[in-house]
């Protein structure tokens, strides 16, 4: 028996299909406009060039790639974060980049809210680590934290799905011999279709 492939699933969710018009398109367009405006507001030629460059890049690549390039490019116009003007410049660009990032299809308000609040919390924590232990420790902290939380999530998901499947197996192995046969027509479906009804009962 061959293992099922992931290709049909990718064809269904198809995150790489760019030229579609839906809710995400408007969010993405809004993010790109914001980035362009930020480049113009900051006022330097370099910031304007970066803004226009990111808008063009955002139209042809996936948002996460644009966000990565954007942060690398911002090093040129925001050398440090210890002056108010630097913070304003970064904040202006960061709002547009975050908006662009959450426009990954499908755009869901819950994910956008989680992403925004998660990014702020992570940045604040990383900032504290940087202040206390330096840049290298701050960078390592972000990577290790992402890996650790992801590993916990993976483990939790596996356990919780296993738990559901286990209940399913228990329902299958319990033939309920004392139940009147006449009442088992609907229950037969329950036995054969899994724990949907089992969890409700």
């Amino acid at each position, binding site marked *: *028996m061959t*293992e*099922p492939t*992931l290709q*049909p*699933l*990718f064809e*269904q*969710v198809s995150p790489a299909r760019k030229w579609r018009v839906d809710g995400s398109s408007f969010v993405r367009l809004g993010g790109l406009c914001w980035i362009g405006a930020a480049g113009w507001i900051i006022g330097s030629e370099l910031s304007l060039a970066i803004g226009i460059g990111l808008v063009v890049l955002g139209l042809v690549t996936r948002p*996460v*790639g644009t*966000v*990565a390039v954007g*942060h*690398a490019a911002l*090093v040129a116009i925001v*050398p440090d*974060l210890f002056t108010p003007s630097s913070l304003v410049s970064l904040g202006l660009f*960061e709002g547009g*980049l975050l908006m662009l*990032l*959450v426009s*990954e*299809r499908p755009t869901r308000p819950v*994910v956008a809210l*989680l*992403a925004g609040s*998660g990014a702020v*919390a*992570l*940045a604040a924590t*990383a900032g504290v680590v*940087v202040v206390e232990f330096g*840049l290298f420790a*701050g*960078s390592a902290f*972000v*990577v290790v934290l*992402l890996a650790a939380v*992801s590993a916990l*999530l*993976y483990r*939790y*998901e*596996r356990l*919780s*799905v296993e738990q*559901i499947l286990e209940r399913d197996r228990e329902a299958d192995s319990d033939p309920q011999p004392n139940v*009147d*046969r*006449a*009442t*088992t*027509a609907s229950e037969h*479906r329950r036995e*054969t*279709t*899994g*724990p*949907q009804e089992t969890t409700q009962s």
Partner: protein
Amino acid sequence: MDPTRQTWTAAAIVVTLAGLTPLTGSLVPVVGATTVSGWLLAVQIAAVRSFRSTAATATVQVDPDATRMEAGTAVSITATVERPDTAAETAVTVTVPTPPVAEPIPETERRIELAPSETQASTTFDVRVPVAGRFRLSKPIWLVMDPTGSVTESYSRGSTPELHVVEAAARELHVGRGGRETWLFGERAERPSGTGIVPERLRPYEQTDPANRIDWKTTARLGEPYLRETNTQSGRVLRVLVDHRAKMRLGPADEPMFEYARDVALGVAATAQQSGDPLGLITVGNDGLTNTVDPTYRSTGYAELRRRIRALEPTPTEQPGPGVELDHPESARRLRFDLEASDHEFGRVLHEFATASAAYVSAAGTQPLVRAVQYHHTATPSARSTVIVTDDTDRDETWKAVRTALQSGASVFVFLTPRVLFESEQGPHTEQVSERYLQFERYRRRLDRLDSVRALEVAPARRLAEVRSTAEDELGEPSRARPEPTNGSMPATAPASNGGSND
């Protein structure tokens, strides 16, 4: 949960930006790393939630159209995946595995795909198992992907129906008269000739087809050469009456008496098809008739008859409860009646289920076999032959059924399974067994002596030989002799040949 390439790409971006921070001496890249990390974690948290929801509420139902089939024949399996709207965020594929011994089926035919926001999908494919045995389908394999395509999950879950694959014919089937096997393979005085005039189907012209068979009207309509295939319909209408009352359950669990009766009925169907004889079917349950199929000469009609014969099981002895039990003819009849006038789609689907099940279509009194013959006379006055497949439990009823069948002037073929050979399967060969077999044989001969009646015994060959060797003196003839050819007008049963007549 498994990360896809998209997640690995985002993780690589985080690592790269984090690495740029000490290199550039700027905090901006680490801000980028935290932004992408926050988004990645949010996507994974949402995925966990949607995977749990899918696992808890999505269901798959795998339904073979028959759980019993002959080796080498196809059975259709329909798999349906359903989920509520609230769990429709994910993309899902469900692949139904087939038994390892089954002939390979492309995965695309066994796969059901549900895109995000879709709540129901199904697929139907044919499984063909070339060897006999009981095979349980493995649990369907689920692959779930979150809507952003970042992570996937896979697990096995769902119903695992069992397929009971039987050999094309019972191994030791004996059909004969007085212990002599009867050659029953296509013995017929007349054979159909020519291509016939009964339209069967249209098909595209092939280079090897004679040009004079092109159907010009169809060709003109469709723009390419087409043939109209025809079928030869003989005037010899047969109707087979199969007794599947509870008494036919007698014998070993894997090969009860009814298996032998079923093989004979399938043999009659196969031979009728080969000969182009229109064939009808009546099946008799405890409380009435469960199938009445008018004579058919079409290949699809013969296939339907064989499907119905294969689906038969001895009827339950107890009355059904108030719920729905599709394996009980009375319960199926009630459901069919209740849903007959249903306007709802669900009701119509259920009605189809009930119709496909063996349900009582006509009630009968104390002698359902006689009622079946009477029905046969009314429904098929043109039938020239009646084939009755039953046992010898109620000899008076069988006798009366045969006499009733003879009243229409048709020839009657009676296939009897001697109850004594199944009651005492693998038991001692006592005098009592011999005596009871002799009683059966006398009864069969009485039937056989009637004008236009041929009565044949249907039994496990080895068991019959053992009992006959004990009763040889009383029988006054050798227990096993060379097979004898039957009368030329015999509706030949060819148990071994029905394996070759796939649906």
